[in-house]
């Protein structure tokens, strides 16, 4: 086995598209940009491309070290030379989705029709729209068929959707810590997060850019709620417990418990770089995703057109995207006569487990990916 290495310095690229993209919400995006990164080399047969789809707060910067900021990619432990998704073998693509805030067309980019930021006028985008846009990027890069499409959480929904929208263009889908659709409870968490943003006085109906402000308090609160649901009760207990900053109660609303400190820090940090409109759009994309909707809720029927092979992975302590939700996908795939394997990883870290490098998790990914033919 090659020793695991970093990809090293990476530089994002921008692809411009001037053919209108029809959207599920009606209408179309007349033109748009997608920011992406690639790692490894596309082989002569163009058969070794792997698309990595990001989740709620992810970006195109999947792996390596960003040339400008020095930031390490969000899935760097998975992608690189000798790593489970080995860039010595595969040509890996990360793309910032439409509506994002990392350079792809989104609410904080300029609306070509007005010359001003899109703000709240940026159209609703769905998982299906993202996949359509990614397919156009694949066209531009000369990739007819992906060896694999990989994603966790919302990224897993994109991987699944790829196999339904473009069955001929995906050999394998790796659907990790995901669900075939959100539960009412899951939508409820998203709604509280959205209300926090929408009710921030500095939201200005989504046109806060023009006022030179950002709804930072609302966005921070939204992130705090999210963070609670990404961790398990045990993980939070072990990390923070009931530890008090002053070693005893001081009867104040300032930070006393360490968990308060952590959540406020995470919330404020996030509000410092993420766009509130993107957060709103993306949580709605999560809520709307339901491939069985047009099939009277029959997921087996919805998966009938798929042709890919699948690996589905869940984590024992993930309650936001619980193992039972992954099993729904697995059973539906099996009953659609798709090849599918399923691993339920015993990992204490909750939903965030999918970003960590639990040994069994990465060993399963490596074993599956090693068997992908290019």
């Amino acid at each position, binding site marked *: 086995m090659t020793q695991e290495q970093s990809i090293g310095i990476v530089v994002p690229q921008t692809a411009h598209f001037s053919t209108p993209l029809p959207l599920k919400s009606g209408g179309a995006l007349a033109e748009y940009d997608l920011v992406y990164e690639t790692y490894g080399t596309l082989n002569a047969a163009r058969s070794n491309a792997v698309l990595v789809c990001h989740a709620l707060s992810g970006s195109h910067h999947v792996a390596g070290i960003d040339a400008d900021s020095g930031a390490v990619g969000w899935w760097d432990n998975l992608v690189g030379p000798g790593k489970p998704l080995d860039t010595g073998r595969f040509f890996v693509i990360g793309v910032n989705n439409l509506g994002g805030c990392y350079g792809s067309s989104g609410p904080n980019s300029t609306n070509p029709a007005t010359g001003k930021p899109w703000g709240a006028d940026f159209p609703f985008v769905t998982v299906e729209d993202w996949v359509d846009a990614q397919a156009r990027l694949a066209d531009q890069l000369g990739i007819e068929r992906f060896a694999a499409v990989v994603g966790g959480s919302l990224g897993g929904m994109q991987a699944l959707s790829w196999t339904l929208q473009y069955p001929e263009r995906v050999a394998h889908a790796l659907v990790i810590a995901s669900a075939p659709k959100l539960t009412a409870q899951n939508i409820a968490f998203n709604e509280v997060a959205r209300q926090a943003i929408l009710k921030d006085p500095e939201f200005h109906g989504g046109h806060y850019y023009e006022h030179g402000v950002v709804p930072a308090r609302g966005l921070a609160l939204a992130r705090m709620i999210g963070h609670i649901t990404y961790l398990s009760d045990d993980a939070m207990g072990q990390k923070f417990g009931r530890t008090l900053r002053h070693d005893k109660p001081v009867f104040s609303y300032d930070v006393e418990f360490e968990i308060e400190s952590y959540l406020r820090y995470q919330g404020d940090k996030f509000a410092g770089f993420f766009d509130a409109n993107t957060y709103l759009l993306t949580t709605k994309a999560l809520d709307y995703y339901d491939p069985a909707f047009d099939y009277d809720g029959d997921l087996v029927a919805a998966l009938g057109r798929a042709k890919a092979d699948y690996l589905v992975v869940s984590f024992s302590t993930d309650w936001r995207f619980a193992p039972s939700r992954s099993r729904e996908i697995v059973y539906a795939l099996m009953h659609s006569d798709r090849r599918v394997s399923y691993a339920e990883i*015993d990992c204490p870290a909750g939903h965030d487990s999918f970003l960590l490098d639990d040994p069994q998790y990465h060993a399963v990914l490596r074993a599956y990916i090693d068997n992908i033919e290019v």
Partner: protein
Amino acid sequence: MSFQRYDYDVISNWIEPGERVLDLGCGDGSLLRHLSEHRQVRGYGVENDPERLLACARNGVNVIQIDMEQGLAGFDDGFFDHVIMSLSLQAMRNTQGILKEMLRVGHEAVVSFPNFAYWRHRQAILNGHMPVSKNLPYQWYDTPNVRFFTIADFETLCEQEDIAIHERLAFDEDKVIVEEPNFLASVALYRLGRNGSAGG
């Protein structure tokens, strides 16, 4: 593949080409691999042990990680042609439950198990020790087996549970045993069906 067990050939002969097969407690997936190579089955394994699951993934077979003791609730009635449990029934607590589940999701069940009444095992007990053999390779204190039963016991259970025995083959190592299997056979393999169904 590292090695083949003689019971693979027996099971293989009971499977028609292209069948849907479910292998419960599929280990490293080598039986499924054998069946997909020799019978082109559409096969799925069930395994709850992380190491064995990993071996299946390396072996390139479909494997689903669930705890069979909880039943097979996610599997549709009659979806599989054959549901196999090879040398694992003795390690299951919910014996009756899993047999019922196997015959719910499969048209036929294939079950193999070590016969605890095999003469060498009886001899070990007579000598005052729990049997340790090729088919029972564990010491009493580290065995994964939780149910200790014989060919005679199993057939009594089948009668009691209204399970039809479509075929039985008994072996001492790779030798077929016809006479006195409960005494002379170390392993038994069964093709089982729901009573009242024609079977195959």
